[in-house]
């Protein structure tokens, strides 16, 4: 039976309509469905695909319609309910609070406002940030495409006024226990973080929560802050803020290894903090950090463990174990390695988090020698046309890099491209192991494991049908308190056949064990 629902004079954007269209077709008992504005042609197309109904005569071009061929009335009611659910979800977020349309309007309503999150097209972002700073409002600049010259001017101005400019392209912060943008639900505590890395910060703060610690503040700086042109201005200001923050007892700094002179300046400042400082220069030289009497971390996971140990007054040691236990990890690695076909040689890493991809490559480079990537560690390992081309030997991809995000959302919001790639590479007879991350928390997809788990199932079956054993190793970044739930996310991936490790670093260690057995 064909059923029609009309919403008079209702306009919805295409993102909403795509979601509705996708979701109602999934409802059991719906054979075909179409949603859209009731233009003549859309009505004609509905008729052409077998969705004709006399009530269509009353639909106008300014009306929104949902038409479905379904098995019964109840099914259509379910479809209507789903439509309402999806539409209300959007309007709820619009109606729940009053959103002043201008910065001045916001300050007029609440003169105490002292932090603004800016997410506008890049060309307008710097001006808006400047307006905030002029009004003594700290800035979290989520927007990217801000030039480095603009960033320098903004940060120099902010530094003089002792205001923060977190960003540009700053995806994560937690201020006074309020998560901003992509952040996880972490316990309050005494560990303060200043970081020039988005998913790196999420990994550290999530693990701190998982092992019983808590955070006081998480200050993002934007990935370019420690470049010479900027001089680490916000890292210095953030560090200074944490030094003077009475709630912060342990400080953690996270960044890619900065230029030598910037590193020296940061480490000198940190060494005078009067509080323990853990420094994680991902893939950097630990001896340089230790020279300054600071605690060096060898991975993001290690940074979290060391910060928690310092917070609890426990002895600090490198964390290189497996949470599941050494023996079990060894056994599992061996079991998987022995199932591999002779043709299977290479590791593929497909990441939605850029820092997680970078960390995995840095941890595995000594073992793998060359890792081809769109964000290579060595210039000669640059993978051309990473998005449309094929993987080459050991290949690790950051799906959040510009090449993959032109005109589409970040993979933490829409992980479908990554899921497709898992399936594509499972067809490669030389592919032995696929490593994936799954970042949950605020801002991320409501269930990023769903598509990934489906892809893992298909990929493993594909390999199995060709006489190969495909090992998928996953690490979930997030906490139990996150809307998606850490354990539920892990379970979905485990049920799909992935080996799920509790951190990115453990995932790399596990893969190294498997490779050792394969040799």
């Amino acid at each position, binding site marked *: 039976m064909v059923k029609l629902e009309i919403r008079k004079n209702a*306009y*919805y*954007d*295409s*993102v909403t*309509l*795509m979601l509705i*269209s996708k979701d109602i077709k999934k409802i059991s008992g719906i054979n075909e469905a*179409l*949603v*859209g*504005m009731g*233009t*003549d*042609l*859309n009505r*004609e*197309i509905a008729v*052409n*695909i077998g969705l004709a109904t006399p009530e269509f005569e009353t639909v106008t*071009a*300014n009306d929104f319609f949902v038409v479905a061929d379904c098995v019964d009335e109840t099914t259509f009611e379910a479809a209507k309910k789903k439509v309402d659910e999806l539409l209300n979800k959007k309007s709820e977020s619009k109606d729940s609070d009053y959103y*002043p*349309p201008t910065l001045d*309007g916001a300050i007029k309503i609440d003169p105490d406002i002292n932090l603004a999150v800016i997410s506008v*097209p890049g060309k307008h972002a710097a001006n808006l940030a400047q307006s905030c700073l002029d009004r003594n409002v700290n800035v979290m600049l989520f927007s990217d495409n801000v030039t480095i010259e603009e960033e320098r001017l903004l940060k120099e101005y902010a530094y003089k006024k002792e205001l923060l400019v977190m960003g540009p392209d700053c995806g994560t912060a937690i201020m006074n226990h309020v998560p901003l943008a992509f952040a996880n639900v972490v316990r309050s505590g005494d560990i303060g973080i200043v970081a020039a890395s988005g998913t790196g910060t999420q990994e550290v703060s999530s693990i701190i929560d998982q092992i019983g610690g808590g955070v006081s503040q998480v200050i993002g700086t934007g990935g370019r802050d420690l470049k010479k042109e900027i001089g680490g201005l916000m890292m210095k200001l953030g560090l200074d803020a944490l030094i003077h923050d009475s709630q912060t007892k342990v400080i953690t700094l996270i960044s890619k290894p900065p230029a030598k002179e910037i590193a020296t300046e940061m480490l000198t400042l940190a060494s005078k903090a009067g509080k323990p400082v853990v420094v994680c220069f991902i893939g950097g030289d630990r001896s340089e950090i230790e020279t300054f009497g600071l605690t060096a971390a060898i991975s993001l996971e290690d940074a979290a463990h060391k910060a928690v140990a310092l917070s609890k007054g426990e002895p600090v040691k490198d964390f290189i174990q497996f949470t599941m236990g050494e023996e079990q990890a060894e056994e599992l690695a061996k079991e998987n390695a022995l199932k591999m076909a002779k043709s299977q040689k290479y590791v593929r890493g497909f990441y939605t988090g850029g820092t997680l991809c970078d960390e995995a490559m840095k941890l595995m480079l000594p073992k793998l020698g060359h890792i081809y990537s769109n964000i290579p560690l060595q210039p000669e390992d640059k993978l051309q046309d990473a*998005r*449309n081309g094929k993987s080459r030997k050991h290949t690790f991809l950051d799906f959040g890099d510009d090449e993959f995000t*032109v*005109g*589409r959302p970040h993979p933490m919001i829409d992980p479908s491209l990554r899921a497709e790639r898992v399936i594509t590479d499972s067809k490669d007879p030389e592919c032995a192991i696929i490593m994936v991350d799954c970042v949950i928390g605020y801002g991320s997809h409501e269930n990023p494991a769903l598509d990934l788990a489906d892809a893992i199932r298909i990929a493993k079956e594909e390999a199995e049908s060709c006489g190969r054993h495909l090992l998928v190793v996953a690490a979930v970044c997030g906490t139990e308190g996150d809307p998606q739930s850490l354990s539920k996310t892990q379970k979905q991936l485990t049920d799909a056949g992935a080996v799920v490790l509790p951190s990115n670093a453990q995932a790399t260690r596990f893969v190294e064990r498997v490779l050792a057995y394969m040799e």
Partner: protein
Amino acid sequence: MNVITADDCIFITEADVFINLKDSMERDLSFANDTGLLVPKDLLSKVEILKELIGDKGSEYDLSTLVTGKYQNPYADFVMKKLFGLNEAVKKNNLLAGELAGEIAGCGIGLTPSSDDMLVGYMSAYLADSKAKGRSCDEIYQVTNAMGNKASKRTNTISGAFLKQCGMGLLSEDMILLMCTIYSDSKAETVKKSAERILNFGSTSGTDMLTGVVLAIVNLNGGEYFG
């Protein structure tokens, strides 16, 4: 909803919106004033860049498949059938193009249905191509006016307004920029950047507009839609 207009100001009281146009920047968005366009030697290479961008951004829900052949959807199937007639009429600068645009408008999902966005891109490129070839603008505007007017009657009010304006040669700043980079000796990278700005329109709108641009250029200059 009450909308109050006074002097150069607009008040929408229920939405707490106040728009003051007194100090706004004035921009002439009439494409008629853009002179000096030319048909570059690498026009079809530029089209290939656009096709690549459309291929990357396009989805099963829009009309990108008209130039990529990647997906199948009922909207694209429908438009494809009507496209041949429109192409022929436009090649001859025939006013019949208006009727045919009307037969295509209002097809697809979204606030501005996909085929409307495609027509906006198509008309923009048609205007630019004609100017670059030194053709009589008055004659071309008659055709695009007919296309905009007829198409606007077959779609919703908001989308119809865009189509009418486009038919009158009033294009967005970003679309004018794209046309100027395509129909000049601008480098490939510049074309890519200006096309990416169009791609960022809405969710599917940008892709559909760019699809229209490619369809028109290929129609008027030879070349292939797929491959």
